[in-house]
């Protein structure tokens, strides 16, 4: 995160530390010799994180290491110099080549590429084409790049305003004639955004690629550069004109996978290869040297500029992750608070306990639209197999096939933004737009290999995955 340097002499210091340092005439960025009751130190006083305690002063030693000095022990601070950090990212002009495709990068926040301030450790996001060119020069070999910063927020703070803005922004760029769109996005809710964009932006003529990174780009091992190169390649040259997520395939630096926006999910809190296509296989594989379409049926790139931009959204929708012994008041409170739609992530084939039957019946009777998905994530809802399922459907709940809970939630928000009429809602929900429901699950749609098995171990010894 960029730290804005203020004129505050003791930035970040508070309480005791601030009092002591003020008393000693110290200020941040001062190069100092410090005498304490324990020993002496020489270094640069750094600003202090506001969440840190008020007992220590941060000093950058000549060797580059930072240490904290207990302010209670300091007897003297002598300023011998002053070296204020200046945050500046030099820009190099992004070269334009009339023979290369034109790509627009839409920024939502999060850091796609960044530079590091070594003195403070602050990460300065690089975003303008010139800045990005400095950080990932390979981009100039791929395309002509334009960047538009739509907003700057963490991905967990995304909300309808951002989604509708994004959808409209995509529409404008398509009209303008770009050859592809890349969206820089934090990874936490990337699959929510990719799902809603799949409904709001239909039949696009060019690829719309969401990309982010699991390791921040200030680290030499970051996945950011490779993800960004592969995403721009997919947008510029790729033949799949759909809303796709482009992120690391295996944890090794090999290739990225292109996932359909409605079937993708972040599955690990920190792995590079965190994004997986569930109950289906990825639509493509891309690396700096290849682009392979892995599925037979994809929407191909078109020359025209036709696209349906439909940014409808109803906010009063919730997702309920069922757990055994859930009490009726969970459903009741949603109804009482005016919620118009509920997506339940049920157990197994789509079940909840008996105490919820009645509140669900009441909710449906009151016009709340209740859909069932599965918390197993893989597989279909099937509510005929067991009595429970039938009882629930009788009370008005609608099975949502193999929609992922997040994809179903986003879809219900979008559908209820159009209509509240029950028949229409059900029809729209169950008519797939971008494979959020598929007719069949291929036999290789659920490949979660388990470690420890001899045959898997053997594979891992040879294949870097």
């Amino acid at each position, binding site marked *: 995160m960029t730290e804005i340097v203020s004129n505050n002499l003791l930035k970040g210091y508070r309480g005791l530390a601030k009092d002591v340092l003020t008393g000693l005439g110290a200020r941040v960025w001062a190069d100092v010799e410090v005498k304490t009751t*324990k*020993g*002496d*130190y020489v270094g640069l006083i750094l600003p202090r994180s506001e969440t*840190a*305690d008020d*007992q*220590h002063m*941060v000093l950058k*030693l000549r*060797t*580059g*290491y*930072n*240490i*904290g*000095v*207990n302010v209670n*022990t300091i007897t003297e601070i002598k300023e011998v110099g002053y070296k204020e*950090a*200046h*945050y*500046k*990212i*030099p820009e190099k002009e992004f070269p334009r080549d009339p023979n290369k495709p034109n790509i627009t990068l839409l920024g939502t926040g999060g850091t796609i590429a960044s*530079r*590091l*301030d*070594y*003195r*403070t*450790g602050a*990460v*300065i996001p690089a975003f303008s084409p010139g800045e990005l060119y*400095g*950080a990932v020069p390979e981009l100039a070999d791929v395309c002509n790049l334009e960047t538009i910063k739509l907003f700057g927020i963490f991905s967990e703070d995304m909300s309808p305003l951002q989604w509708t803005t994004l959808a409209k922004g995509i529409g404008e760029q398509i009209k303008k004639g770009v050859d592809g769109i890349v969206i820089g996005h934090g990874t936490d809710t990337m699959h929510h955004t990719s799902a809603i964009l799949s409904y709001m932006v239909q039949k696009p003529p060019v690829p719309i690629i969401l990309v982010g990174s699991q*390791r921040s*780009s*200030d*680290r*030499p*091992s*970051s996945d950011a*550069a490779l993800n960004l190169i592969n995403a721009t390649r997919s947008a510029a040259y790729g033949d799949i004109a759909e809303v796709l997520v482009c992120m690391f395939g295996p*944890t*090794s*630096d*090999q290739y990225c996978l292109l996932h359909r926006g409605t079937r993708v999910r972040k599955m*690990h809190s*920190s*792995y*590079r290869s965190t994004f997986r296509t569930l109950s289906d296989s990825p639509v493509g594989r891309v690396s700096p040297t290849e682009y392979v379409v892995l599925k037979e049926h994809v929407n191909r790139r078109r020359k025209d500029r036709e696209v349906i931009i439909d940014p409808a959204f109803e906010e009063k929708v919730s997702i309920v992750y069922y757990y055994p012994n859930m009490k009726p008041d969970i459903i009741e409170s949603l109804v009482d608070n005016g919620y118009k739609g509920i997506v339940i992530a049920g157990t197994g084939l789509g079940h909840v306990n008996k105490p919820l039957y009645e509140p669900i019946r009441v909710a449906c009777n009151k016009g709340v639209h209740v859909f069932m998905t599965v918390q197993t994530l893989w597989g279909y809802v099937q509510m005929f197999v067991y009595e429970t399922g039938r009882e629930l459907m009788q009370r008005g709940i609608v099975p949502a096939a193999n929609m992922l809970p997040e994809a179903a939630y986003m879809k219900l928000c979008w559908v209820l933004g159009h209509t509240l009429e029950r028949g229409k809602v059900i029809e729209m929900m169950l008519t797939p737009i971008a494979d959020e429901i598929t007719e069949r699950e291929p036999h290789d749609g659920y490949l979660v290999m388990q*470690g420890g098995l001899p045959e898997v*171990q053997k594979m*891992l*010894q*040879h*294949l*870097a*995955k």
Partner: protein
Amino acid sequence: MKVEYLSDEEYQKLGLTSGIEIHQQIKTDKKLFCRCPVILHKDNNFDAVVVRHMRPTLSELGEYDGTALMEFKTKKEVVYQLYHDCVCTYEMDDTPPFLINQDAVDIAIAIAMLLGCTQIDEIFITRKQYLDGSIPTGFQRTCIVGIDGEIRCKGKPIHIRQLGLEEDACREVSDIGHRITYKADRLGMPLIEVVTERDMVTPREVQDVAEQIGTCIKAAGLAHRGSGSVRQDVNVSINGSTRVEIKGVPRVGLIGPLVHYEALRQKHLLEIRDELKSRGVTKENLKFWTLDVTEMMDELGSGVIIEHLDVGPGNRIVAMGLGKFGGLLRKELQPDKTFGYEISQRIMVIACLDGEPNIMWDDGAKRTGDINNEPWERLFTALEASSDDAVILVWGNKADVKTAVEETRLRLEDAIDGVPNETRQAKPDGTTGFERILPGPDRMYPDTDLPPFAIPIERFERIERSAGPNPFNAFERFRDMGIPDNSIKQMMRNGRWLLFDRIIGELDVDPQFVAEVLSERLRWLERAGFDVSGILDDQIFELLRAFGDGKLSRESVPLAMRDSLALDDPIEDVLKRYEMKDGHDASLGDLVATAVADGKHILNALPEEKAFNALMGEVMRNSPVRLEPREVAEVLRTALSKVDEPT
């Protein structure tokens, strides 16, 4: 190793200064930032592989750090071999760090205290960039727990700049072309790093200090033992040169030779610098040009060169002209290693051209290989090079050759400046090879994944209370008593230095003898196959008390120790057996009696005088300690007189 060291005065004239960094694995059950157990695999049965690349990141000036740029040029594919039992997703940079191992922090603080360091109240985890792939994140997590310490070595104060605690890197398996392979088991193990100021001025002194620090850390009982548990980096400079760092010295005994040869290498590089200056060569007017001679080889009549080159399809051969470098490539910088070799090394590391040889050259006065005159003359002509110039041939795939040409030019520019700022790899013969350009201070930045943590005063106090005697102080104190370094090191290694202090404090015995018993004599027993840990400190104490009281002779002490180990006899019995009789000690009597009994044939076969000398020799040889010949002769004569008596 036979090294012809210079005199101290000569090193002083060169202006040699040197500092060391000692990396020592410390004793913890688990790694530093994850909960993997500390296990090192001897086998190659790894369970999985992961492949990565390293990208340089930019500093705030928008510039790549020199090392970063170099590593990026090499475009290496980095392969990690993983072991199921000791590598988790943290090491592979797929999981953020767990909170730091607090046992390791305690140990590091304890060692910082022993070194007399100023303690750090609040510890910040810092990232130190390494782009060679040895750490998958591209940086090492490290922190400082003490600064400004001091030890004494032979009366001279040596300043300790800092004591760091950091995670260890992977072990390199191979580095071939554009692919480097690492074993990941060692990655993440806690290390301490002791950094001295550049206070040392002779190779011997650097080695002494390294040895003393390494020995004392182990003596404190907080570190792992065994090979590979300690590694040293040594930095060396002389007047007019820049600092060169020699990385990963595996044995202390190599430090003296390495420092010596590095000082000479720098001296020779400065001579080249001066020579270039006198020839009027500057960076601005350096004449360096190339000619792609791939298609010309036949016409040059250099079939012989082709044979040497092993030029594959699509590969290029490029000749480089080095203006006014005539006669300089052959200049020897290290034993058997020329300036030409230095260029070859740099091309090998950065351009990944690792054939042998990877370049050929002719500097007018001398050339590599056994190639005859003619082709070289034609090459000089084709390049329009004069006899004042030098020519280098390099071959390989186009991209690598391009890098090689660029690196050669950079190395020549460095030669004009003198000594390049670089890290070098230690070779077993005491010489070094190019490893990488020395990274700048810009490669340090705070770790944003972990919060700083304060060390409350109570914790310092607890660590101080549980600390044992200080080996760093003891080392120099023992030296002051006249104990030889070798004995001190042995006592520190076998842990008996604490017993030494106790005996010196409580008994009136010659410290030199005590040290001898606790070092060489124990070694003697060890070499004889005994597990000397079986003899308790208290038992040795009792034996030396008896020695102090005049009840045991010097010679009997080790024999008594042997009996106590071999026969598991109570110490009182052993004492009784070896108690002095008739002013002589029993052990000598035993030795003589054995020699006489075993030497009957000698007595029969040889004239009296010769037989006597042979038995004398036998007794002296069999004794664990040096005997007084006069005393042996007396006892032997008595014994022989008894044999001669008719029975």
